[in-house]
């Protein structure tokens, strides 16, 4: 039963035992032989107090993990009905990793093929990186609304934010045939985005920039979102 809950149980148990031994063995072994018994008892009680807290944390995490496993399938089925996911992030490249991970989970929940999942995540990463790097003044703090729609045979990303006009359709193209020392340092995100996606759209609505990108999935006979 435990093995079916966690197939790497043995390996994990080994790691945990080792960790516990590494920290507990020296302290427990010292026991009464401590140079100062009063201090020794005090040190040991502190250690045991922390060990108990840590064991509690680990136990709660293990129970949560087990619970999560049993509800994941139900949630995933529910999520599959949802073809859209939205995020609100701030204009900081720190957020890109978060966006990448969540989009990856979303795409995986919809059982897209592995390659499509990463094409989708990569396109989104480049799109948001381009906006964050070019859409704001120095030190300006702003929020971006990011929306990912899974459609019949494509993914549509929309990024909306208030900021200065930034039209990706007007971004200069990079001539990659230039010698490496003449290649520009900037503009690679939009260059890569153009290579990765099938359509790029832009609209300025009042103070808002609405940037849309479409990535069609390669037809492999599998991976239509369920």
């Amino acid at each position, binding site marked *: 039963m435990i093995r079916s809950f966690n197939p790497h149980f043995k390996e*994990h148990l080994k790691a945990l035992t080792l*960790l516990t031994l590494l920290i507990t063995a020296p302290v427990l072994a010292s026991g009464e032989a401590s140079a100062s018994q009063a201090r020794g008892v005090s040190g040991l009680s502190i250690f045991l107090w922390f060990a108990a807290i840590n064991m509690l944390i680990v136990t709660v995490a293990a129970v949560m*993990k087990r619970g999560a496993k049993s509800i994941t399938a139900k949630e995933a089925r529910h999520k599959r009905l949802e073809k859209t996911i939205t995020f609100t992030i701030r204009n900081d490249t720190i957020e890109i990793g*978060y966006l990448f991970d969540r989009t990856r989970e979303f795409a995986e929940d919809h059982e897209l093929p592995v390659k499509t999942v990463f094409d989708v995540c990569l396109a989104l990463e480049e799109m948001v990186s381009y906006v964050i790097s070019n859409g704001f003044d120095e030190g300006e703090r702003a929020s971006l609304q990011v929306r990912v729609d899974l459609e019949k045979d494509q993914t549509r990303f929309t990024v909306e934010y208030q900021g200065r006009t930034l039209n990706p359709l007007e971004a200069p193209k990079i001539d990659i045939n230039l010698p490496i020392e003449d290649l520009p340092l900037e503009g690679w995100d939009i260059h*890569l985005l153009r290579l990765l996606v099938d359509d790029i759209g832009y609209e300025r609505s009042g103070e808002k920039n609405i940037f849309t990108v479409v990535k069609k999935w390669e037809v492999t006979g599998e991976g239509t979102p369920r």
Partner: protein
Amino acid sequence: MKEIPVVKTVLASRLYPAVLQWPTLIFFVLIIYSLLHGASDAEKNFGTVVTWFLWWPALGVMFLLAGRIWCATCPFSLISDWVQKAVGNHLPVPKLLRRQGSWLIPALFILLTWCEDFFDIVHSTLATGVLLLAIITGVVASGAFFERRTWCRYLCPLGGMAGIYSRVGFLQLRGAHDKCIKCNSVECYKGGKAGPGCPMFEFPRILDSSTNCNLCGTCVKNCPNDSLVVALRAPSRELWSVNKPRIEESFLAAVMAGLLVVLNSLEVAKDWLPAFLGGGSARLGFTIFYFFSLCIPVLLMLLAAKLASSHNGTTTRTNFVRFGYALIPVVLAAHIGHTGREFLEKGMLIPFSIKSFLGLETQMPGSVSLLGDEGILVVHLLLYGAGILLSCYTAWRIARASYKPEKRVGSMIPFVALIAIFAGLNILLVLSAE
């Protein structure tokens, strides 16, 4: 910048960083043991001596030489990985941490440093032990519930300091644009055959700062295109080529400056300051003095930014954010000087505490210093000299990159004055302490 293939080979090795993490972990276990059960005199205890007189002073030097290399070898990261492997729930990082993490880390660092002085942790073996165990608890909780190394990236109190200091460092790791542009696997971030992806939530392909690169080598091992480049660079180079300067980092630089003034003041005034701060309620007095001292450099930097903005026409905030980075080299010099002083004054305690821990020696050496007072003073002056030069040069490069020729000198002068005030005050305190 000069590539150093040998370092890249080390980072690509399967043995790295385990070959460093394991000895560090064993050492760490011994330290915990010694702190909880060893000699109660901090100067005789292996744990306190190694933690405060060896590791802490070495940390600043490591940041200068090789960025956050310590983070790659830190035993806490190994513990976090183990717990994550065993019971990890890999939950997304909470919104609060993602949004406010860059402010939370400086706040935790300020709190930690206050605790350090308030409870005199450096001179208490049990308190040092409790501190380390408390950090382990945080690491275990973070590894048990959250994804990647949430602790190291968003919570480690040393992370903010490590981040800004590593920008001064000589070593950098970056993705090669020409190779990354052709890559559609992103194994550096998502992980690959060699293991999981970047534990610090970074995309090496767009990495433009060393703040959150701990040189763990996972991206180097995973990259199928051999795109990662490890290179030597001029110290502080990154400070004047920051793409997106952050107010949190500039603020932390100013706070660190204040902190070093506090620490150097305590060295000078340890005999009379407690009485001056309130006698019986000295702890409250210290707390007020501590937080007030942290505010002064921030206010001075705001004043400098205001003066610069009246000259160059950009906002006070923009000047504060941009030029805050210029303070980092001199703050790092002051930091190395302050912590290095502990090492130089008490360095002989290290071999003694090791021998004492092993039961080989119980008699404390007559002299514990590695260098005389004059020697320590010379080291301080050399460090401050280098720090001032580097900070002023950084301020100049920032001004050159940001403003038209006629506005550059006027923009940088208030910050050069600030650098001089900070360094001068600290030098004065160091001289008074001798």
